[in-house]
Each structure stands twice: as C-alpha cells, then as structure tokens.
C-alpha cells in the first residue's frame, strides 16, 4: 500500500477527494474520513499556513508510515493545504480504509491529532485586517497524549 500524501498550495474539493479515494480503494468495505475547514464566522477573515517543505512533507510521510505500522490500513490519504485560505475552504482531508471499521476510524483520529498537534505548520489568522500567529493549544497536547499509553 502506498499512502497518498500531498501538500497543496491551492484550494481543493474535499468531497471529490473522498470520491476519488473510494474509487481508488474499490476493494475496501469501508472508508473513514475527516475534512477540516476554515470555520466561517468568529471573525476570521483568512487563515495562512506556512510550512517548511523539507520537514513538513517528510513529517507527513513519517506519520503515514506510523499509521501503517499501528493499524492494518489498506488505503490512506492525507491531503493538506498551505498558503492563504478563506472561510469555508478545506484545510485538510484524511481518509483511511482498514480491515476493520474501527481501525479505519482510529487511523483517521490518530492522523488528525498528529497533523494538528505535531506537524510542521505555522498558522496565523487574519482578524479585522490584522494577522495574528496561533500558538500551540493545551488541547492538542492532551489529544496527542492519548496515543502514548
């Protein structure tokens, strides 16, 4: 199995990616997925994700390898935006198939926790015309800690 791991500089259609993933994994009984988007409302006018290619993409590949080691996934896709995104635009898609439904769901859960809390992305939000850097959140560390038992 080869994981489909991509960094995209421009907008992507997350539902179409799921459609493609389902078609590419036609032998799978189930597909778990998570789509993360820029939340409309709350005063965020834009979101920018910076990355450092040599680390960011390599880190996502290493994460995909770890998912494959922990669960019997038969298909895995991780697609992540970079650059400036507007409210409603997709930031990230993770989709997985596995031998059992719960493994597929856990794989997605694990990959999302690590993409959010343990990846080489730097994020800032534009509010009232001003950019503000986003710091790490306590919740991200506690989400990650769940997997270290």
């Amino acid at each position: 199995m080869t994981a489909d791991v991509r960094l995209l500089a421009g907008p992507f259609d997350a539902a179409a990616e799921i459609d493609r993933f389902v078609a590419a994994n036609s032998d799978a009984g189930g597909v778990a997925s998570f789509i993360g988007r820029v939340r409309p409302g709350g005063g965020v006018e834009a979101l920018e994700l910076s990355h450092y290619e040599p680390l960011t993409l390599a880190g996502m590949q290493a994460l995909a390898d770890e998912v494959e080691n922990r669960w019997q996934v038969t298909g895995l896709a991780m697609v992540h935006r970079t650059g400036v995104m507007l409210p409603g635009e997709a930031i990230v898609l993770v989709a997985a198939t596995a031998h059992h439904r719960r493994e597929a769901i856990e794989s997605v859960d694990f990959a999302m926790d690590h993409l959010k809390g343990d990846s080489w992305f730097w994020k800032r939000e534009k509010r009232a015309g001003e950019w503000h850097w986003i710091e790490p959140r306590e919740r991200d560390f506690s989400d990650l800690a769940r997997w270290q038992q």
Partner: protein
Amino acid sequence: MSLKLVFLGRLADAAGAAEREVTTVPSIAALIAGLEPELSTALAGPRVKIAVNGKIVGDRAVFTLRDGDEVAFLPPVSGG
C-alpha cells in the same frame, strides 16, 4: 561563502523576511550572535528548533556549519 537562513512562523516577522543570506560562520552560536540583538534573542530560546539542510539539529553546541548550508529556525508549531 554564505549560509541561507530560513525563518518560519513569527520568526519571519522578527527577521523582517522569510529568508536571508549571511556570510558563513562555523558554529550556530556564532551565527545567532552575529544577527541583530532582538532577532538573536528570539532565535536563542530553547523552544526554537534548528534544522540544517532539512534535518533537525540535535546538539547545536557541537554542530559545524559549512558553506552553502540552509539553516532553518523553527518556532513552536501552531495548534488545531
């Protein structure tokens, strides 16, 4: 005879640009010490990680820089 510096996240604001070229110096300590004081302070913190040519540096005190190296300064990543 130069190093390429890359500043990520808020460090790019502190540096005034995402990238910069500087004359090669042998150590990371010398590199940081040679920058303007505010930037130097921002880079010296223990939460800033450093990558040379795409690899995280383990012990920056003993790392030797070479001509043409790309040195990236990585502040803590953002959360969810």
